[in-house]
């Protein structure tokens, strides 16, 4: 592995880091990056089409098709049934049905759900998607961060009690039977201790007199949270890159963060949405914690393994020989280079964390895509199940894409043809 630490942020704190690239290199990088992104978008569309085809044929292969469920009502006379079948296009050959399915998907027409009868599938899914995204993104970020921090600590103290304990606890949660784990958590925190709300998304008693719908509040909440996250990221980025690192500038950065959050809370209070937002957040705590508990150990154990490799590198020994403090060597030298394989596996584990998401949403009655998919599948609601499965796939594709692009930005060694340039 190439010791890339000279570029990945200056290790000695007081020094201003050198600019990463010259202007020419930057230009070339932007051009290759653009080409890479275009290629990835092309692949994305192709993969999406193949995925949709597979979902379609899976649904066709299932016993009992849509027409039977939809038209099975014995009160419909035979002539009307045929007419309906013709109107629905079910008398055409399968290939044309497939084509119209693809066309309908891209024009936003996914049919009408059986179980929520007059509502179109698209409407339901668009309502549910943000809730899944919020749960998924929060839990994944949190579990990645927890796993990263714990992993670098236990790798640094290899063989110590902390290492053993964390490995045992991590493996237990990683392989725990998570429907049962979530039931236990609900029972413990919501039922016995009575600290957190019992399932669902909102507290109906509180919302019945609310002047807003939960979707509006939730939308503003997500928007506000993203703005806060962006602001905090910018503050710390400026602090890391542009300012000298002194105690005063650190204090300033933290003060600014606190100011941003305070401002957000004040705005929420002024518009009268604060209690409602707090209600939604309270309902989020348990599902997010469960997902984090299930997922963090994977990152942690992987971080530990990859860190065990980097601590044997020469540049780590050099940094230690220079007399840098232990935690600086650990965090700035060893951990940064150990991060990349962990990020790769994060990209690969998105799908499995979506599976965990379905279970969590079902167990906590969190009205997201996973719960919709589960109920639709159980209730033989074919249009909704198809739509939810395709939406899950699209969501994962986009998540993969974002993670890939982030990864390409993170690792300067990636040649943008999809293959890592230097793999050791």
């Amino acid at each position, binding site marked *: 592995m190439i010791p890339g630490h000279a570029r990945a942020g200056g290790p000695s704190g007081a020094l201003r880091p050198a600019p990463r690239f010259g202007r020419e290199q930057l230009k070339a990088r932007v051009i290759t990056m653009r080409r890479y992104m275009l290629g990835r978008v092309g692949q994305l569309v192709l993969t999406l089409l193949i995925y949709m085809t597979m979902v379609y044929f899976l649904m066709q292969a299932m016993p009992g098709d849509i027409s039977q469920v939809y038209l099975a009502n014995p009160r419909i006379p035979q002539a009307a049934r045929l007419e309906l079948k013709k109107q629905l296009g079910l008398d055409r050959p399968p290939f044309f049905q497939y084509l119209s399915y693809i066309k309908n998907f891209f024009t936003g027409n996914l049919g009408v759900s059986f179980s929520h009868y007059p509502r179109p599938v698209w409407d339901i899914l668009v309502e549910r998607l943000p809730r899944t995204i919020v749960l998924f993104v929060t839990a994944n970020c949190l579990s990645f961060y927890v796993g990263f921090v714990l992993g670098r600590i236990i790798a640094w103290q290899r063989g110590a009690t902390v290492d053993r304990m964390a490995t045992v606890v991590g*493996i237990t949660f990683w392989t725990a039977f998570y429907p049962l784990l979530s039931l236990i958590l609900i029972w413990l925190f919501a039922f016995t201790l009575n600290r957190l709300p019992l399932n669902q998304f909102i507290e109906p008693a509180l919302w019945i007199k609310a002047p807003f719908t939960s979707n509006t509040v939730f939308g503003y909440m997500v928007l506000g949270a993203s703005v806060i996250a962006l602001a905090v990221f910018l503050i710390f980025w400026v602090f890391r890159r542009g300012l000298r690192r002194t105690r005063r500038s650190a204090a300033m950065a933290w003060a600014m963060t606190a100011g941003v959050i305070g401002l957000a809370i004040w705005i929420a209070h002024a518009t009268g949405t604060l209690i409602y937002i707090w209600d939604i957040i309270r309902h989020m705590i348990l599902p997010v914690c469960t997902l984090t508990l299930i997922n963090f150990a994977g990152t942690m154990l992987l971080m530990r393994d990859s860190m065990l490799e980097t601590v044997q590198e020469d540049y780590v020994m050099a940094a230690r020989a220079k007399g840098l403090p232990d935690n600086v060597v650990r965090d700035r030298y060893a951990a940064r280079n150990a991060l990349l394989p962990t990020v790769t596996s994060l990209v690969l584990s998105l*799908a499995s964390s979506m599976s965990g998401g379905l279970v969590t949403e079902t167990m906590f009655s969190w009205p997201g895509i996973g719960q919709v998919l589960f109920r639709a599948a159980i209730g033989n609601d074919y249009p909704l199940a198809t739509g939810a499965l395709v939406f899950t796939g699209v969501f994962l594709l986009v998540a993969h894409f974002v993670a890939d692009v982030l990864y390409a930005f993170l690792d300067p060694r990636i040649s943008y043809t999809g293959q890592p340039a230097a793999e050791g």
Partner: protein
Amino acid sequence: MTELATSPDMGRGPEKQLPRFDPGITEPIWKIRWKMNMRSLAQNWEIFKESRVGMSGLIIIIAFGAFGLLWPIMINFVWDPLIYHPVVGFDPMLMHPSPPVAGHLLGTDPIGRDILAQLMFSTGREFLLGMLSAVISVVVGTFIGAMAAYYGGFTDTIFMRVADIVMLFPFVPLLVVIGSMIRLSIFPFAIILGFLEAFGGITVILKAQALQVKVRPYIDAARVAGGSDLHIIRAHIIPNVLPLSFLYMMFNVTAAIVSEATLSFFGILNIDMSWGMMIHTAETAGYLFDFGKFWWLWAPSGFFITLFCAAFYMVGRGLDEVVNPRLRKR
């Protein structure tokens, strides 16, 4: 085994050549190979023994195996099938669900079946399911990975694109959809899981490993000596990626058991008894709302699922130290 991989002109028959080469070897070559394999196995075993995590996992698996093997003995010679049958048994002498009593060491479930008997009966099934799906995924995955790495080009592209898509599939939602429409029993379920895993991540990882093997000099030597493609893949590439596939087999057992338990818990699979099914029974009968009081309904099976998966995962981590020399202590 007729072909002798090391040298092409030994194929004419060993009795003629022995005087000419006189390598001083009187044993047939398969015996030498066997010995070498045994020696490398013994070395790997030494490394594996060092890892405490791996060894404890192995011990737990052996304990589970013994527990599962007890089942045919118990039901045939010790227990009365009318009372202790895991699916249709019923004990008329007790109120159900009954807490642990003398005849039922772990109590009974809401419809009067013995929990211990259910646990014991399911152990063998879980082994079967986990091993079957893991073996399928690893055999298929290894073969595809080796082929993709060796041939490259078109074969490689096709399998890698397929892997991309399969990796995209969220398994549990997909299986929920399949399972809710077809009643899956244990064998089809294991086969579907095995193939899903085979075409997904495992192919990519094994292909990366096989690519490293492919550029070694002995592959060229084998090709120069006239080895066919299939022979090179079978005799040189696959044995060298086998440790890694074995490692992933352990992880796949964990994945298969967790998927089975989750789907059984939701009542989607057509399986008469399994650990997930036991929790499903307790949940649908409404006994999970009071965890502390009816602990024997969920704790043994939940504990078994976690322990069983953890054991395979731990063995996998122990094997990881065998496969990845950099993870070892010194």
